């Protein structure tokens, strides 16, 4: 039964015109992770690779393609955790990096903390040599369209993102 890897691309509203990209994205990510596992790689390497691929894929709400905050900016969160020693690392409200999951792993591997947030996470990224990217490179036309649509006073962003209670 081992090795095994399972990935998700996010629960909620996926418009019809984006379902194919979304399915293709999770299949591509899981293949890459499974190749690592079949090559004797660790489960941590596999999950970080899978999530990195989906952060780089503009079809998903993570990394490139993240939804925008109220001011039209991108703030991202990520976590990794390994089951042998219960080690974990996370970043929150981090900006201007392409792969928050890789920074979360550095928090786990290089610090004694569980989570670094906002400017602290950015300073740590710089110290680790993680390249800074312009916020614009993380924003897609689709995420900007949804942001604009949800600025209306009567908008319901949670329902727009998650869908109605089924």
């Amino acid at each position, binding site marked *: *039964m081992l*090795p*095994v*890897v*399972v*990935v*998700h*691309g*996010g*629960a909620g*509203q*996926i418009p019809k015109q984006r*379902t194919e990209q979304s*399915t293709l*994205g*999770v*299949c591509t*990510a*899981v293949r890459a*992770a499974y190749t690592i596992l079949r090559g004797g790689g*660790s*489960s941590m390497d*596999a*999950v970080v690779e899978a*999530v990195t691929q989906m*952060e780089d894929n503009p079809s*998903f*709400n*993570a990394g490139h393609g*993240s*939804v925008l*905050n*109220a001011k039209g900016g991108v*703030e*991202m*969160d*990520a*976590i*990794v*955790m*390994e*089951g042998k020693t219960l080690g974990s690392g*996370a*970043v*929150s409200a981090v900006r201007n990096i392409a792969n*928050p*999951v890789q920074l*979360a*792993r550095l928090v786990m591997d290089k610090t004694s903390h*569980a*989570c670094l*947030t906002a400017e602290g996470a950015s300073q740590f990224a710089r110290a680790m040599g993680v390249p800074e990217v312009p916020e614009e490179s993380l924003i897609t036309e689709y995420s900007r369209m*949804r942001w604009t649509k*949800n600025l209306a006073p009567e908008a319901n*962003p*949670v329902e727009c993102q*998650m*869908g109605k*209670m*089924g």
Partner: protein
Amino acid sequence: TVGAVAVDSEGNIACATSTGGMLNKMEGRVGDTPCIGSGGYADNNVGAVSTTGHGEAIMKVTLARLILFHMEQGHSVEAASDLGLAYMKSRVAALGGVVTVDPRGHWAARFSSRQMSWAAAQKDTLHYGLYTGEHFTQSI
């Protein structure tokens, strides 16, 4: 939100989750993803979970750790995932989805929303789906 759980050939388990958060969220708003036990959890003795959905609700029920508690009580990965999602829906009226795995390689992709894109790879077979009830397979 995107996430992954895995068990390698040595039986070590891991999870990872990453997100841009909620549409039009307040600046500084942090959801469930970076919180241990909510956005993800991994323990070689029990299993691993990566979650997605309404972050404030996931944190209220600490969804990832809740599902692993159900597995510690003997529930299967699928039943434990459904119990956790059902509790979140009944207790705080919120939707979400999870991918779950146990140390023996049993896995589940479950969600209470209408859609969640997911994929799994095991024994050189690719499994995937998006709408409720879908489960397609093909050789990897």
